[in-house]
């Protein structure tokens, strides 16, 4: 089974914030066809009507997390740290946020589906 990467890159430029994210998610189809979505590394749970809606649900949830972290928390970076993320250098030598936890748990949690959004602009979310 391929391990899913988890990394987040945050670019702040003149008040504009854009986020590039790759993160494991788990989908579970419920009795009435709705889909329950778990994003464990952000401790977020949401719900969608179908597969296509799931993508919107995940984008909305991540956007909400980022906006709420900046507005009501200590900022996205600090809130990611509280969740267990660490700043690391990626293959290109750029600083990105990566998720790091104990080995066996890490192996289990990396078995989810991969959600990738290379360009989430927080301003355009609302």
């Amino acid at each position, binding site marked *: 089974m391929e391990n899913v990467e988890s990394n987040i890159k945050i670019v702040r430029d003149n008040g504009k914030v854009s986020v590039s994210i790759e993160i494991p998610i788990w989908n579970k189809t419920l009795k009435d066809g709705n889909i329950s979505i778990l994003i464990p590394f952000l401790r977020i749970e949401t*719900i969608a*009507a179908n597969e296509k809606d799931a993508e919107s649900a995940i984008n909305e*949830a991540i956007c*909400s*997390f980022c906006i*709420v972290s900046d507005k*009501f928390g200590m900022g996205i970076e600090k*809130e990611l740290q509280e*969740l267990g993320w660490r700043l690391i250098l990626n293959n290109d030598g750029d600083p990105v946020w990566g998720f790091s936890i104990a080995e066996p748990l890490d192996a289990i949690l990396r078995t989810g589906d991969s959600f990738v959004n290379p360009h989430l602009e927080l301003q355009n979310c609302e």
Partner: protein
Amino acid sequence: MSDPHYPSVDISFILERAKACGKLADDGIVKIGATTTLVLDGPQPIFKRTITMRELKKGELVFEQATNIAIRLNFLSELIKWLEENKHWKDGAYKTA
């Protein structure tokens, strides 16, 4: 539950009760698309004081989400009353006469 046998709940009722509980941060209701996030006041990290909900049908939350929020913000009895009055739904087993 997210189950056709359980009624959906108007999000307006949930938000009204959330505002009334006194635990929300100022302007602590953030709406992004169909997702609404409640932010509670407090020093804890953000992930420990946010509640996420999502309208699959405009204006409505699925039963399970509504009850989880009601439990967390301590207005479950009000929700049960609302369900009886607005959805003619009573908790527990039904008996037909």
